């Protein structure tokens, strides 16, 4: 039942990076955004593997940009979130909020 799917941890982080970057989201910027905000060094392969999975679920769409000389004449692949992806984000957030509600996460009760 893919429509009831929740996002995995890294899928969630990648999709939030796409939302933050809007129309500037491609491999390099997504990787750098994640590294800057989470301190986690993600490999470009991990980003592409996750984006592939999200694209196969219909949560993300991609398109090739123009080739540029600083990339050795290779094009950028830009990613953007779809309406289906947006509802998956909202569904995941609702589930997380519901699970967190009423919990004391300060750690003082441990």
């Amino acid at each position, binding site marked *: 039942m893919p429509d009831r799917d929740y996002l995995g941890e890294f899928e969630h982080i990648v999709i939030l990076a796409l939302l933050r970057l809007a129309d500037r989201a491609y491999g390099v910027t997504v990787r750098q955004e994640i590294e800057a905000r989470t301190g986690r060094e993600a490999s470009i392969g991990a980003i592409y*593997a996750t984006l592939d999975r999200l694209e196969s679920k219909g949560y993300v769409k991609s398109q090739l940009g123009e080739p540029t000389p600083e990339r050795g004449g290779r094009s950028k692949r830009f990613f953007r979130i779809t309406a289906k992806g947006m509802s998956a984000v909202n569904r995941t957030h609702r589930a997380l909020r519901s699970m967190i509600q009423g919990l004391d996460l300060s750690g003082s009760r441990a």
Partner: protein
Amino acid sequence: MMSHAPVVRPPRVATWLVDLFASDEHAESLPGDLLEEFSDLASKSGVASARRWYWRQSVKTIVHLFATGFRAAPWSIVGAVIGGYLLLGFGLWIPERLVSTLTLALVRGPLAGVGVLVSLVRQWPHPLFMLPFLIFSFAGSMAIVIGGLIVRMRRSAPLRRALGA
């Protein structure tokens, strides 16, 4: 007038390996992303640091690409690897009974060279299908050359002893 930074190239072997494992869909964008970050890092932190980063990223990326490829087409990958080993075993067993080690090394050496050239110039028809050919070309030639050297050393040792005596 804009000044141009010196052209710094990333490690060739790492680039070749990423190209080999990247799917057709990402053959443009993924190596381009790595090159863009490499150039940026080289101008900020130096070439040595950028090269280390490039190797680290390439190795991690290849692991992910291989895992993704395996999930997408597990039987083709298993088939390619088994096919390569079978080809290697068959290719070593039959000719060794027909011709000498030196002749085999002379044939396999250029074959390995052609294998490298073909895979560098054109990944035809698909990178994964090159795997049996690469295993066959490289491992076979290396095994024969090393085996030939060992045999030669063992043969010449008693002769040297006899001459020295």
